[in-house]
């Protein structure tokens, strides 16, 4: 069994660092068109920030703010966002994930709508990746029981 490590330095610095890390994750997701990054990388950073919080404090401490039920919902919601945007293009009469056609329902020209559609896809990917990373960590650390952990 792993003993609980409660340390003032680690907790204090994590408390300062975690918002910055999450902000950087959103930057990586939103800036993915122009620079290295994208939905997967940003989602990984976002999930890692939650894992850092769980290591520095306690799993229960994070679960109170971000319940596991909600996390599992987010796993499906990101994929749903991806598929919904793709299917919307299909309904409007273009190919799957051909965002250019979305200018029929959004008030912008096709080029801007294409960039916007890519951003929507990236957000869906990011939500799913971060939620899945958190889910994997929770399952590993509680031995798959979804109960109170000993860590």
């Amino acid at each position, binding site marked *: 069994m792993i*003993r609980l*490590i409660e*340390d003032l*330095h*680690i907790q204090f*610095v994590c408390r*300062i*660092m975690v918002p*910055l890390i999450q902000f950087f994750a959103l930057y990586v997701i939103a800036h993915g068109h122009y620079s290295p990054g994208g939905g997967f990388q940003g989602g990984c950073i976002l999930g890692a920030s939650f894992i850092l919080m769980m290591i520095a404090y306690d799993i229960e401490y994070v679960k109170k703010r971000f319940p596991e039920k909600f996390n599992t919902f987010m796993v499906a919601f990101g994929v749903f966002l991806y598929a919904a945007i793709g299917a919307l293009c299909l309904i409007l009469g273009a190919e799957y994930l051909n965002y250019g056609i979305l200018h029929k329902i959004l008030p912008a020209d096709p080029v801007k709508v294409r960039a916007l559609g890519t951003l929507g896809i990236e957000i869906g990917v990011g939500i799913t990746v971060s939620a899945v990373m958190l889910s994997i960590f929770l399952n590993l650390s509680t031995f798959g029981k979804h109960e109170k952990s000993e860590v």
Partner: protein
Amino acid sequence: MIVEYIIDAFVIILVLLGLFFLFTATVGLLRFPDFYCKLQATGKGDTLGAILILLGVILYNLHDFSLNNFLVCLKILFIIIFIFHANPVATHAITKAGLDADVKPLTKEDIRK
């Protein structure tokens, strides 16, 4: 013109100093006898070396001053602040985990043997 040479000189000094600290940190990691000694060598040397090299990069970026270059410098400054906070605390966490896992520190009796 002469200003650029002065900036270049400072860049070279900063990068060389950073390389020196990284080198000593690596030597300490390889040569120190103990878990905790190795950790303190890397924890201090890596932090200072990385910060000095990044400061040199910032100065080098300021050669031709424009908004884009200034933004790049600001981002590197954020990296410096992040390293300055995260690296020593990570070392502290590893040390604490070592203490909790009963890793014995080196004592005078061990050296005499």
